[in-house]
C-alpha cells in the first residue's frame, strides 16, 4: 500500500483544494501519471503519481480543501496492478532500440540524433489563425475549446478581450482562468519573496557577454526553418546555464534546514510572466540532456501551459535553479530575488548592440548582461564569477550547445 498525499507545491503552500480527480478506484497508475488537478495559489496544477499501483480508494472528494500532507488517495500493491494488466509487464523491453551491432557500418540509423519533433502541432482553426493575426493575439497563450481542443475564433476573441481587460485597469476584477486567481498568486509571490529576502543572504554579480557568435549561428540556423521551428536565443541561455551547472553544482540545488542539498538533476525553473501580473517559474527537467530543438519545444509548451493552466506538480516542486530573462522588455540587466529554497537565480537582460573594445579597436557587437543572484550561505563571489564565466564561454561556441 502507498498513500498519495496532498503535495506541497512551494515553500509557502499550506493547503490545496482538490479540483478534479482523474483516476477512480480500480485504475492502474504508473509513476508520473497525472492523477488529479489541485487548485493552488499558483493556479490549477496537475498532480502526478510517485508510485505505481492500483487505486484502492480516494480519500477526499472533489472540491475539498485539505492541508498539505493529508492522505488524498491510497494505492494497492503494484503486484495487484500488474496482475490486472499482465500483458504490459513482459513486453516492456523488446521495442527499445537494440544496441547497435558492433559490426554495423558507421551510420546506424537508430543512433542518429534525430532532432526531437517540436512537440505535437497545435490545432488552430483557420478562422482562429486569421483572427489572431488581425487582433495581434499570441496563439501560444490561448486555451482551445473547439473540437478536440482546437483553438477556434471565439477562443481568440476571448483571449483578446481578457488581455484588453487586464491591461489598463489592474484594479478591475482579476482575470481568472481555470482556477488561476491572480490575487492569490500575488500573495504567494509576496510570501516567497519576503521569505527569500528575510532568510537568504544574497550576493550579486554581473558580466557582459559577447553574443556575436551566438547571434550569427542562430541566424544561420533559423534561416532555413519555418517560423514555428525557429529557436529563440533564450534557449541558448538555458542550455548554456544547464551545461555550466554540471561543473558548478553548488548553484544547482536547495538549501534546507541548515544544509545545501544538490539537485537530483539540472531542472531549470524558467520564469514566465502571466498577463495581468502573475509570475511563475516551473521547471524544465534535465535541461543539460536536451538538444536545442527539444528544449525549444518544451519551453513553448511550458509557456502555453502556464497561460492556459495545466502545469504539473513536479514542474513546481523540482526546479533546482531559476533563469529569468526580461530581455524583450528592454532592460539591460536584472538582479533577481532567489526563489526559496533554491540557491541561485540567473538573469539575462536585453540583447543589444554595444560598442566594445575588440583587438584594441572599438567594435559594435550584440551583447547581453548576465547576472547572478546567489545564496552566500552556499557559495561565494569567487565561485559565482567562475560560474558566470563558464556560461559566457559556452555561449561563444553555440554549435556545441
Amino acid at each position, binding site marked *: 500500500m502507498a498513500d498519495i498525499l496532498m503535495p506541497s507545491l512551494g515553500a509557502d503552500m499550506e493547503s490545496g483544494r482538490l479540483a478534479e480527480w482523474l483516476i477512480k478506484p480500480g485504475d492502474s497508475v504508473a509513476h508520473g501519471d497525472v492523477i488529479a488537478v489541485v487548485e493552488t495559489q499558483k493556479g490549477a496544477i496537475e498532480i502526478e503519481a510517485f508510485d505505481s499501483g492500483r487505486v484502492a480508494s480516494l480519500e477526499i472528494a472533489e472540491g475539498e480543501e485539505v492541508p498539505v500532507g493529508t492522505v488524498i488517495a491510497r494505492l494497492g500493491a503494484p503486484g495487484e496492478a500488474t496482475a490486472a494488466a499482465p500483458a504490459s509487464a513482459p513486453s516492456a523491453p523488446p521495442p527499445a532500440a537494440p544496441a547497435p551491432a558492433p559490426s554495423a557500418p558507421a551510420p546506424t540509423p537508430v543512433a542518429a540524433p534525430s532532432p526531437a519533433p517540436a512537440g505535437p502541432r497545435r490545432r488552430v*482553426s*483557420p478562422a*482562429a489563425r486569421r483572427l489572431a493575426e488581425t487582433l495581434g493575439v499570441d496563439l501560444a497563450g490561448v486555451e482551445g475549446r473547439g*473540437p478536440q481542443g*482546437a483553438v*477556434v475564433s*471565439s477562443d481568440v476573441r476571448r483571449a483578446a478581450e481578457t488581455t484588453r481587460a487586464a491591461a489598463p485597469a489592474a484594479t478591475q476584477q482579476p482575470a481568472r482562468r481555470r482556477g488561476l486567481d491572480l490575487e492569490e498568486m500575488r500573495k504567494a509571490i509576496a510570501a516567497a519573496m519576503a521569505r527569500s529576502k528575510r532568510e537568504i543572504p544574497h550576493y550579486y554579480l554581473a558580466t557582459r557577454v559577447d553574443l556575436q557568435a551566438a547571434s550569427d549561428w542562430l541566424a544561420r540556423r533559423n534561416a532555413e526553418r519555418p517560423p514555428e521551428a525557429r529557436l529563440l536565443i533564450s534557449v541558448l541561455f538555458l542550455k548554456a546555464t544547464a551545461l555550466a551547472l554540471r561543473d558548478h553544482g553548488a548553484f544547482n540545488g536547495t538549501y534546507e534546514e541548515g544544509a545545501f542539498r544538490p539537485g537530483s538533476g539540472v531542472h531549470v525553473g524558467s520564469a514566465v510572466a502571466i498577463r495581468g501580473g502573475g509570475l511563475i517559474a516551473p521547471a524544465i527537467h534535465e535541461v543539460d540532456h536536451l538538444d536545442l530543438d527539444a528544449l525549444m519545444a518544451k519551453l513553448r509548451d511550458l509557456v502555453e501551459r502556464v497561460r492556459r493552466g495545466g502545469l504539473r506538480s513536479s514542474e513546481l516542486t523540482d526546479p533546482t535553479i531559476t533563469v529569468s530573462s526580461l530581455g524583450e522588455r528592454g532592460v539591460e540587466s536584472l538582479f533577481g530575488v532567489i526563489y526559496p529554497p533554491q540557491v541561485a537565480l540567473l538573469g539575462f537582460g536585453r540583447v543589444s548592440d554595444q560598442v566594445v573594445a575588440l583587438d584594441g579597436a572599438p567594435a559594435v557587437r550584440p551583447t547581453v548582461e548576465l547576472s547572478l543572484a546567489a545564496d552566500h550561505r552556499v557559495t561565494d563571489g569567487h565561485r559565482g564569477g567562475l560560474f558566470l564565466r563558464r556560461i559566457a564561454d559556452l555561449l561563444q561556441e553555440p554549435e556545441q550547445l
Partner: protein
Amino acid sequence: MSQPVETTYRECVKQAIREAMIRDQRVFLMGEDVGHYGGCYAVSKGLLAEFGEERIRDTPLSENAFTGIGIGAALGGLRPIVEIMTVNFSFLALDQIINNAATLLHMSGGAFNVPLVIRMATGAGRQLAAQHSHSMEGWYAHIPGLKVLTPATLEDARGMLWTALEDPDPVLIFEHVMLYNRSGTLAADAGPVDIAKAAVRREGSDVSLLTYGGALYKTLEAADKLAEEGIAAEVVDLRVLRPLDTATIVASVARTRRAVVIDEGWRSGGVSAEIAARIMEQAFWELDAPVERVCGLEVPIPYAAHLEQAALPQVEGIVAAARRSLGR
C-alpha cells in the same frame, strides 16, 4: 398579402400546374398515370376533367420516348411539363435528358433552347424499396445545361414551377415523396418565386446546417433541439442544386464558422461533397471546425421500415454532427 389558407405540398404542386395551364395555352402535362389515375402521388387528380386529354396526357411506360417527345414539343414552341414517376425511372431517359435536353443549345450554336420542365418524385421513407426510393438529384446537378430545383416548402412547391416554365432551358424539379402530405398555411395569392437563390430558413450564429428537400424538416427539428442546448443553428435551404448558390452558403459559414451538410443522397461524390469542396475553396479561412456531413448510408435503400429509417439522415445524427463541430 392576402388571407393565408390551409393547404398541402401536394395541393401546392397541383395549383402550380393548374395556374400554368390557365395562364399559358402552350403548357401541357405528360407522364405515366397523370390523367385517368390522377398521378401516382395524386398530384394531378382532377386535372384531366378540367383540361382534357389534349393537355393532360397519359403515356406508356416509356420514359426515354415520352421525355424525347417533351424535348421535341419544347423545340416546337410548346411548354411541356413531363412527369417521371420517380427519379429511379428517369435513368431510362438519361439519354434524352443529358444528351439532348442539356446539350441542344450548345450543339445548335445557340439556335435552339429547350424550354422543358421535368418533375420527378425523389427520396425514401415510404417503404418503396431500392428501385423507387433513391435521391439522385445530385447526379443531375452534375450536368451543365440543366437547372435542378428541390422545392421543400409550400411556397416553393407553389412558386417554382411557373418560374421554371419561363426559363428558356431545361429545368428538373425534384419533389420529395415525404413532403406531399405536409400541410401548412400559404398566402392565397402566393405566386412565382425565384429559382436562383438559397434561403436561410432559420437564423443562427453557431453552426450552419446546409440542406435541401426532404431533409429540411429534420434539420429544422434538429435546430430546435440544438437551441435547447443553447446552440444557435442557422438552417440554409439550398432550394437550387444547380447552379448552387455558393454565395449564400459562404456568407452563412462566414457568420457561424461551422458547417454541417445534410443530404439524404449518398455521401460519395454527392451534393454534400460538392458543398464541402466549395466551402474549402471559398471559405477555408472562415472555418473553426472541419465540415461535417450527415448523409444517406451507402446502401440501396432497404424495404424494411426500421432499416429504411436507419439508412436515412435523422434528427439525432444532425444534432450530434453539429455538436461535434462545436467541440461539444
